[in-house]
């Protein structure tokens, strides 16, 4: 019995049927769909990271007394960073399982997926989508620590050189502020750099870099508007 006959007989004997064409097409669509879904979520995550950076600002890195890496991790929203990495990985895995993906190297797919996520994410951030979405999370998910809350926490560490709050009174080289925990502070601004955008008037919200010199006393090196970067 030749091979062809053996094979035909086995197919007939076991009634082996070819997989239907639609199942192959569906599998391919599912992989492409998964890729697009993962890319979309990755892009949104990236846009919220951009939003977090714009809110918190990297300029404060130099004022942290921790390592740069540690400081970056404090500023970046870890949840969204993890989501970005997870879904970026998912998008790469799903695209690499599509029919002709093997034609391009793993590095190219990583680059392409990352590039698309960055492009869409940046666009989403520029159009205000990230801010809107972040606000939705803040208002709808109780356990979610919003970027604004995180910002407040980061800028409320006088021992580490950051302070923020609302101006209560301006008296020459001395500033009186009420921080976001309603505690009053006396600020020495004699040698502080005051950003041009800061309006030194009562009720104005500001953030400061400097050093805590006593109980509720702070010597400012820099004064910036609270919402300066948004």
């Amino acid at each position: 019995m030749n091979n062809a006959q053996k094979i035909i007989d086995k197919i007939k004997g076991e009634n082996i049927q070819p997989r239907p064409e639609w199942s192959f097409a569906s599998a391919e669509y599912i992989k492409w769909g998964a890729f697009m879904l993962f890319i979309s979520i990755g892009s949104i995550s990236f846009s919220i990271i951009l939003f977090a950076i714009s809110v918190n600002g990297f300029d404060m890195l130099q004022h942290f007394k921790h390592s740069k890496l540690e400081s970056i991790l404090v500023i970046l929203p870890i949840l969204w960073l993890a989501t970005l990495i997870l879904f970026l990985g998912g998008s790469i895995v799903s695209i690499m399982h599509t029919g002709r993906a093997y034609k391009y190297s793993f590095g190219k797919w990583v680059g392409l997926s990352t590039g698309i996520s960055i492009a869409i994410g940046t666009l989403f951030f520029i159009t205000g989508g990230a801010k809107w979405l972040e606000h939705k999370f803040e208002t709808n998910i109780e356990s979610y620590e919003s970027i604004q809350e995180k910002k407040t926490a980061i800028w409320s560490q006088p021992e580490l050189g950051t302070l923020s709050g609302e101006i209560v009174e301006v008296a020459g080289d001395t500033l009186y502020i009420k921080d976001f925990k309603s505690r009053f502070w006396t600020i020495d601004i004699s040698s502080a750099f005051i950003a041009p955008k800061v309006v030194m008037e009562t009720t104005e919200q500001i953030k400061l870099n400097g050093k805590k010199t006593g109980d509720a006393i702070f010597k400012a090196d820099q004064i910036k508007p609270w919402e300066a970067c948004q």
Partner: protein
Amino acid sequence: MVNFKIERCVGLSDREIIRLSLADLEYFACLVLKYEVRLLSYIKKISQSNHDEAEDILQEAFIKIWKNLNGYDPRLKLESWIFRIVHNETISYWRKKTSYSKDNIVRLDDERLHTLMAAEDVDEMAGESFFRIIEEVLPLLKQEYREVLVLKYLEDKSYIEISDILKIPEGTVATRINRAKKSFKELAGGKFDNTIFK
């Protein structure tokens, strides 16, 4: 099959065979007949299988080809697609059965072994010694090196075809072939008298 006339396969293109097979299973025999000799040879070259084992692998591979016939992507050559399935089946079979034995010798009687001699990194060697080296060195190569050398020099496949068969980028094919040739030369040079190379 009993009443199927092999003559009905004559003149049919690969795509016609696929179309007719899906309508009438008997035509699937045309596909088997067209490729079985080359595929059996290929299985033996990359896996050190004996003839019976190679036939078992081939049979299982053709069953898979039948099951996936609707999934054939016409953008690639049918031959490449078939080689891919046979390749995967062979690797899978040998992984299940055993790790590759380095003591086994691949029996190569293909005249296209001579093409290896023409490879730029492998200098001309005396005929008999050369075949002995091929037989003894090929199994010593890493699997990924052996398969690209077999496909390139023994099966006369282009980089695009090898890329489609192994599902790796063409650039990787080129890199792997270069490394395989170097590895082959090193193994042959270490194992045999260096005078065998010019």
